[in-house]
């Protein structure tokens, strides 16, 4: 009897050991993803190092579902650059091209006008009523690179939350049940 009891005991301790290892593994995955994201934020100097293109306003250069890599530094903004900006009162950042720049002689402040390559009109209609120019503080990054299609993953997940939970569930299950 003691022999069986001892065996059960060892199996039980093995199970807790495994469970602990898996919890640590899960934690590692989550933290390394976080470290990667924060690291990118540091290197690129922008709050969102990558954005997904949601609209067709920059077609055919950028299509819906493309991923853009952003960068931000103190270099002055110049015409032709593709910038990401937030307008007051709207949550969604917009990715459009700068078509006009006026830089002040005394303060170095800039007035910027943007336009989507695929749009007929410039962006004054998107700005709040009465605002003619974007200033530096509206601009959160400039696009430096593009990766096609990958952004569809997030678009689909945002539009069909069920799929998001399914994927997260499946991934979690896989990590929990994986053995070394």
């Amino acid at each position, binding site marked *: 009897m003691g022999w069986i009891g001892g065996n059960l005991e060892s199996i039980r301790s093995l199970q807790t050991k495994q469970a602990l290892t898996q919890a640590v593994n899960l934690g590692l995955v989550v933290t390394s993803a976080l470290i990667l994201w924060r690291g990118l934020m540091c290197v690129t100097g922008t709050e969102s190092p990558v954005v997904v293109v949601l609209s067709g306003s920059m077609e055919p250069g950028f299509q819906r579902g493309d991923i853009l890599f952003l960068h931000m530094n103190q270099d002055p903004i110049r015409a*032709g650059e593709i910038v990401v900006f937030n307008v007051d009162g709207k949550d969604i950042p917009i990715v459009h091209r700068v078509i*006009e720049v006026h*830089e*002040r002689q005394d303060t170095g402040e800039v007035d910027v006008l943007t336009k989507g390559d695929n749009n007929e009109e*410039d962006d004054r209609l998107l700005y709040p009523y009465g605002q003619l120019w974007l200033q530096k503080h509206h601009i959160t990054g400039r696009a430096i690179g593009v990766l096609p299609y990958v952004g569809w993953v997030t678009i689909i997940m945002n539009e069909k939350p069920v799929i998001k939970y399914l994927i997260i569930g499946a991934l979690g299950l896989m990590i929990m049940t994986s053995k070394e």
Partner: protein
Amino acid sequence: MHSYVYRLNTLVTFAAVLLAVLCCAASFLDAFNSPSVRAHAEVIKVNRFRKQLSGNDEVSLTLNISMDLRSLFTWNTKQVFVFLAAEYETSKNSLNQISLWDYIIRDKDHAKFQAQVASKYPLIDQGSNLRGKKVEFVLHWHVMPSTGRMIVDKMALSKFYLPEAYT
């Protein structure tokens, strides 16, 4: 069951890594392309030159533009966005850049052309400084790749003195 999931996982991971490497390689190879651009722009006519009600000067021009951008295209090029900007300095602004005309070139066959174009966007100053102002025309191009890094460059083409009087 586990081994199937594992095999699938390994396969997908390997495919993703391979794709990422290929994307990096495609973008990296673009660096070996050293393009030589030839372009020319001149003003044919000043269509309109007036002071807006707001007090800002506004000019509309007709330009003769020719360019050869074929050397910008590589196998990773999706399109070239090209625009002609008027650049000048005023007492208020150290730099004014205003895009007058832009164009999207989809492939190499359309990258060499000559055209007479009316400025797509009017040249509007912040103020009334354009009479007799020296304006420089600069051609900017933005090579947008299928994947990877975007390449930006520019070339100053010509200078033009705007008329001394409104039309």
